């Protein structure tokens, strides 16, 4: 593989809740539904375990996109976790938009344990989106001294 001609391959972190989305990703696997290897999944017990700091940290360390998947609202294994996660992520994403980080580098998708197809299509879409946005420089570079 030559370095010069290497096309941009994004680094993508996916936080998946253990009960629905991680199982959905497993189902995508057992159904052999292909999505790019750029996506790496981190298992968390619930979407409400995802601290906005984790997402910012990923960006800071060079991630180009971060996606969080959880149970559908109403189906949370812990009944209410994803409702809190939904508010947190809405506000965080809005703040990132406010400081000029491109829309679309972050995403939340509700994926049930039965939705292997949805998991796979979501990841394909997300990788495509991030690839089109190119490498993430803004979050890495927010405070560089001029």
């Amino acid at each position: 593989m030559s370095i010069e001609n290497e096309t941009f391959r994004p680094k993508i972190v996916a936080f998946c809740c253990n009960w629905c989305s991680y199982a959905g990703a497993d189902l995508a696997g057992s159904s052999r539904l292909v999505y790019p290897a750029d996506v790496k999944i981190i298992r968390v017990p619930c979407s409400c375990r995802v601290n906005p700091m984790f997402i910012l940290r990923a960006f800071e360390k060079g991630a180009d996109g971060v996606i969080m998947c959880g149970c559908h609202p109403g189906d949370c294994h812990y009944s209410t976790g994803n409702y809190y996660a939904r508010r947190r992520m809405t506000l965080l994403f809005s703040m990132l938009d406010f400081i000029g980080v491109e829309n679309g580098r972050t995403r939340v998708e509700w994926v049930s344990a039965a939705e292997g197809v949805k998991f796979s299509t979501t990841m394909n879409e997300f990788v495509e989106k991030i690839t089109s946005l190119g490498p993430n420089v803004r979050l890495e570079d927010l405070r560089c001294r001029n």
Partner: protein
Amino acid sequence: MQELVNRAKELLADGTVSRVLGWKAGDMSYNPEPAYFNSAEELENFVYDGFCGANLSKYMIEASKLEGKTLVFLKPCDTYSFNQLIKEHRVDREKAYIIGVGCKGKLSVENIKAQGIKGIESIEGAGMNDGCDTLTIKTLYGDKTCSYNDAMLERCHVCKGKEHQISDEVMLESRDTKDAERFAQVEAIEAMTPEEKFAFFQKELSKCIRCNACRNVCPACSCRKCVFDSTKYDTAQKANVTSFEEKMFHIIRAFHVAGRCTDCGECSRVCPQGIPLHLFNRKFIKDIDTFYGEFQAGEDTESRGPLTNFTFDDVEPSIVGERG
């Protein structure tokens, strides 16, 4: 101002309170600072004028641990912070005797300097009995004048109102100072292109020297130990240009106080670099109001904050992209 001192002496004398929390004169006439007064004699140094912007509610966290009651002077906007601290069990209402003190808009010497006035020796016209229209500034280069309103802090132009949310008694008159829309600045930034937004914040945040003044003054940032000093997030380093906290500090700080910030504006007031830090907080407040209904932290001491609450049909995070 003298009536405040007199009342404080009375309350000390009859044993209602053990000490007084107020402001004392600083080295210049425009920089009074928060201070405890334990006796009538000490109260001779007490001041209260247009430069007493400091929000004393956060000091009540420590004062709540002391023996006896503390008399604290709270301006209308400070009372929101105090209520929020009651909600979070950080201050003890029983340990406080609150005099809700009137406010005619607080001043910033930076705003005066920004008008090209240099070599300031003293400033007159900032007292509670003055007319609040013109400040007379004695400088090395002669007397200058400046309109009171032009010298006011940004937060006073979008004042939340003259009512004290909590108090044992109220003294001195307040004045309407609101002459701007609270969210106008936020909206102006929202209207920018992503490139412009990014350039704006990159410029502002690049000034940050991580002095932590914003954190230290913020009544919502009252954690015993801040996550930025904690080993649990690997974020404890200071002033390292490539570190995590360096880039994300202000976003995370704003997120941590989201739903709890009363918009008291102290962060922007104390920033030595003049970064408009209140913009982060106010953006969250605006979003919370639009997405989840109007909410003013500190209006009461019971209700659930917007981030510890939800409805089944809250907006999805994708609204951020859809809004365009």
